[in-house]
């Protein structure tokens, strides 16, 4: 924890760099960025699987006959997630101004939007009419969207923790790393969805 304290001191620049604080970016943030790099590689592997199936199945149309994808429902979900990127940003900006009400509202809204996304995806899954067992197409479709859904779920868990801590008054203008971290993760999940959506539903 002392490492975090060093980081904060650095950022606010009220004393010269302490020993063992050889970076301007606090350790937990560096750790989070590195973790996201590895997450990107994980998604990359699933994309590789997706394109491999798409090429090796060799169907003339994609999705192959007779499967169909609910493009507009997924578009709705895209709009929901993109909106949630703005609300989490708002939450973070609020606490930087010491506006706790804004923080709680922002976090709450983001959580609800994320939850709506997951519920809509669950609904979509039950009505698609194909399963992960249906050829490379079914496997990779569920693989990619499922992996993303799992990340939304993890993001929601982090947001829920941040929300409870926000209500209990743990954050302030000086101390809000607990909001910043899930925020970075959430932005990543959103960006990943845009790529998944474009790949799976649009092209």
């Amino acid at each position, binding site marked *: 924890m002392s490492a975090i304290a060093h980081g904060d001191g650095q950022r606010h620049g009220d004393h010269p760099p302490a020993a*063992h604080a050889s970076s301007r970016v606090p350790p937990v943030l560096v750790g989070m960025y590195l973790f996201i790099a590895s997450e990107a590689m994980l998604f990359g*592997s699933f994309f590789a*699987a997706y394109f491999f199936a798409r090429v090796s199945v060799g169907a003339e149309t994609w999705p192959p006959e007779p499967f169909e994808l609910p493009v507009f429902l997924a578009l709705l979900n895209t709009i929901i997630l993109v909106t949630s990127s703005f609300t989490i940003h708002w939450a973070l900006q609020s606490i930087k101004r010491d506006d706790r009400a804004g923080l709680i509202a922002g976090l709450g809204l983001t959580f609800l939007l994320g939850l709506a996304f997951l519920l809509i995806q669950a609904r979509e899954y039950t009505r698609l009419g194909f399963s992960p067992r249906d050829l490379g197409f079914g496997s990779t479709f569920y693989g990619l969207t499922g992996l993303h859904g799992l990340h939304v779920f993890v993001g929601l868990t982090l947001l829920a923790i941040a929300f409870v801590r926000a209500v209990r008054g743990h954050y302030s203008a000086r101390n809000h790393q607990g909001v910043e971290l899930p925020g970075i993760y959430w932005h990543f999940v959103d960006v990943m969805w845009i790529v998944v959506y474009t790949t799976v539903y649009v092209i």
Partner: protein
Amino acid sequence: MAVRVEEQVLPTWKDGAVMRWVTSVDHKKIGLIYIWSAFVFFVGGGSMALAIRLQLAQADQEIATQGSFNALTTMHGTVMVFLFAMPLLAGIGNYLVPLMIGARDMAFPRLNALSLWIYMIGAIVLLGSFGAKGGAAQAGWTAYTPLSGPDYAPELGQDLWILGLHLVGISSLLGSINFLVTIVNMRTQGMSWTRIPLFVWSMVAQSILILLTIPVIAAALLLLLLDRQAGTSFFLPDGGGSAVLYQHLFWFFGHPEVYILVLPAFGIVSEVIPVFARKPIFGYKAVAFSSLGIALISMIVWGHHMFTVGLGDGLNGFFMVATYLVAIPTGIKVLNWTATLWRGNLTFRTPMLFAVGMVALFLIGGLSGVVVANYPVDYQLHDSYYIVAHFHYTIIGGMVLGIFAGLYHWFPKMTGRMYDERLGKWHFWLFTLGFSLTFVPQHMLGLMGMPRRVYTYDREGLFEVYNLVSTIGAWLMALAVLIFIVNVVRSWRSGPRAGSDPWLADTLEWYASSPPAEHNFDSVPYVASHRPLRDLRRRLGGERDG
């Protein structure tokens, strides 16, 4: 409420000797637990190798059946790579990195302990594969589909193998993040990026590789598990999946894995050679940045494991040329080590013997690799004993010798005592002799056409001779390791006391006492070059080396 300050603190459940280690978040204790347990797995994986060599000592032996032989080769490879090699390097890194950069501990001590214990659980799950109905996994350490798929490996052993690897992979991934953050954030005052020890540079390159490639093998194993248990068809051709995809994902991780193992050994050698040549390393920046160069290039060469799959001349040619490129940064390192030795004041203590031996043997492994990187040649040698010989030269000749160099070099630091020089030299000469006897003949076996992973072979002149020599060599290596164990146990208990800097080395870990105090340093000198202790000695008017 009144608080009585003088109240005696009662011992808690954490105060027993065992629990002090188990609950520790100190990087040195965690490092030692990693080293000890990885060494136990080294002995375990080595025993499997001895069993393999016994079965192959003569034709038509019946020590192992076809099935149990496959399980032995599979588990030998997996245990050596994932339970011995990676954790042992994690242990050495854990012990040394914070000391070398003048830090109190790793950036995230509790995450560090979590990585350690996830590794332990993963190891138990992986070895639990032996207890499963139908025996341990048999699909090879590469677990190619469809061999590892539901049709050909329906037993539970393969699933435990997958789950165990998942856990060990997560452990390495968390560890790599911890190392990178530690090195980015925790360097002491004055220690800029061109002043960190070369071992720390090698850990930077290794951690980047782990960070970017472990997720890929994790994905491959996850999809394989789904194919086996959930009826998907990612890798199963019958359902429109692709077995070649599995190979791509596996080797995208598999080739960099070689450098995940070998880069820290390069780092160790880059620390040991200057100390025993009494010269600064030749070309610090070249050695440091060639680590990064190797790491980056190693991520675009994986196709050389798949030349016989039928990628076509275009891709095969690309992977061939890319593989040749790795020889450039590797050659730079070899050149720099040689130049450091050149006209140095050499003393051949045990760490130095292992370091120089590593350079020589890894060079042979590298050159035999350049031979098979040529894909028409590989058509002939693919999956033969030549490949087995080649990669054991890089992994044992490269990594294991490097690790031994490091263990001897830092033994006085970790234990406060000096090892026995005579036993150390016996260890080196017996080990390298046994190693050469084991693996030189395997090159020939491969050229004669003996495929890898077969449990017996034809009764025919040279096949029998080479195999017998190889088996004798393997047992010599085992004897050498036994000598090492005796040396460590004896010296740890009653070796002569070593001071804080017995080698007159230049890096910060030698500024701490031996073994270092729980908090590492009372103070750290300001770092003004990559040889802070040499600077300190000069300021105090001492010796004039280098």
